[in-house]
């Protein structure tokens, strides 16, 4: 064979196929691509038998140079003596040998990382670099998108927290009540605060289920809105706890009327899915005019004390907090 021509094609192979193995008709390795040498222990492989270093996994029984030549152009799966696998293709040369060109296949991303390969390890027309670029760019874009999703999700939660409406009943929520209460205190308008805790609501939930419980809460909300004026505030501040604030209304007789009417209304049976739910309510009332300097905390805690006086006295009744005796609640009477 012409030595010059052999040299020329060797150089061409080195440029075009940096992962090739050129094998003589006798199976000796004539040349190895520069990148293949980087990734496999092939330093002393030149002149030795190809099949010492590589076995053909697919197709089966491909064990000689002639077998490789017969499978020219087909996809070959090779396993190197190191255990690494490669996709490959064989092409016969003009002297009875074959040129086998190897590729990492889909594991290229890992292989590039493992062996610290650079752009010059690939032929400029090989799209591996573009693929690696794309993998990295997509990963970066994906992580930016994921970051956006996480932040948007956080913003939704924050918006929900900032909302002033109780989603189940449409009443104002605890946060709204805090705002209104502190406004009324700051404006020094006379008002009364009524704390309502439903009686027997737990039984409804336990025996008839949460759907019935939700229905009852919605009915209660409707009743509370119906029994109060537009300028009053009605808020659901907990599971079955409500706070009502009566703007410019501090007359005990009127408040008593309202309390009695409310409890009577709450005690009307509520129908739900063929069942009847029965509840009532315990009320505690405190008035801003009973304090020299009312604070939100104090009003809420005092209304709560009055409420518990009602509960202790047997439920379904109301009590006023008596600021003068500081904690002694007016003897609650049953409303019915």
């Amino acid at each position, binding site marked *: 064979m012409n030595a010059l021509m052999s040299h020329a094609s060797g150089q061409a192979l080195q440029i075009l196929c940096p992962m090739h193995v050129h094998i003589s008709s006798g199976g000796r390795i004539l040349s190895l691509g520069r990148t293949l040498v980087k990734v496999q222990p092939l330093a002393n492989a030149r002149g030795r038998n190809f099949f010492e270093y590589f076995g053909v996994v697919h197709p089966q029984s491909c064990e000689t140079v002639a077998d490789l030549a017969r499978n020219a152009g087909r996809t070959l799966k090779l396993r190197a003596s190191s255990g690494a696998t490669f996709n490959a293709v064989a092409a016969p040369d003009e002297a009875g040998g074959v040129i086998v060109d190897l590729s990492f296949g889909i594991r290229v991303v890992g292989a590039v*990382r493992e062996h610290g390969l650079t*752009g010059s390890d690939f032929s400029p027309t090989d799209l591996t670099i573009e693929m*690696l670029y794309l993998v990295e760019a997509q990963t970066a874009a994906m992580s930016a998108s994921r970051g956006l999703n996480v932040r948007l999700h956080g913003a939704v939660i924050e918006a929900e927290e900032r909302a002033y409406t109780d989603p189940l009943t449409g009443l104002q929520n605890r946060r709204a009540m805090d705002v209104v209460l502190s406004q009324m205190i700051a404006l020094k308008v006379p008002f009364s605060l009524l704390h309502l805790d439903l009686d027997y609501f737990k039984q409804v939930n336990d025996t008839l289920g949460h759907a019935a419980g939700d229905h009852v809460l919605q009915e209660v909300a409707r009743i509370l809105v119906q029994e109060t004026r537009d300028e009053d505030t009605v808020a659901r501040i907990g599971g079955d706890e409500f706070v009502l604030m009566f703007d410019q209304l501090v007359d005990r007789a009127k408040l008593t009327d309202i309390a009695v009417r409310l409890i009577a209304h709450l005690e009307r049976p509520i129908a739900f899915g063929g069942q009847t739910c029965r509840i009532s309510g315990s009320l505690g009332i405190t008035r801003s005019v009973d304090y020299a300097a009312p604070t939100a905390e104090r009003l809420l805690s005092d209304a709560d004390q009055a409420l518990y006086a009602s509960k202790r006295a047997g439920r379904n009744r109301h009590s006023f907090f008596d600021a003068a005796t500081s904690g002694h609640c007016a003897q609650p009477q049953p409303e019915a």
Partner: protein
Amino acid sequence: MHGLVNCSLQKFMTDTYGRAQWEDVVRAGNCTVTDFESMLQYDSQLTEQILKGAEQVLQKPRAVLLDDMGTYLVSHPNVENLRRLLRFGGSNFLEFLYSLEDLPGRASLAVPDLLLPDMAVEDISPNVFLLHIDVWLNGFAQVITGLLRAIADDYGALVVLEALPKTATCETLQVTLFEADFAQGRQFELGATA
């Protein structure tokens, strides 16, 4: 304007001048957004407002700010992934310069709605090149100038950049490559990150 552009401006200014200065820039520019999301689109007016605010607060002409930003994009550790993506363009400075012609295509492969201006490289002599950049964001050629200077350092190449008079449709930079291997560049491993 794509959020990546505004986001880059924000990162550049916060990393270089600090968060408080950035907030001043936003205020001075009457900008309605303080924190930009890289994956959203914004009104182009906002980008102008940021740059106006920045000129006022940071007391630097727009050209200098954008040049600094170009350098920042390639050299600051907080935007290392962008430098990496750019370095995929070529294994030496000249290959990189030619790869700028592919930049809009590369960008939209990664982020489909990111539209960058077309760029073309004209060979004048073996070491003198003209980079023509279609008119886009006012001052974009300055960003590219800063970026090219920094990426030349990254490759260890010695280059001189000069802005030529711009036309209505195109800004042109003259790039003179004195030495491709002037200094030891920074490492670039294709598969360095997970």
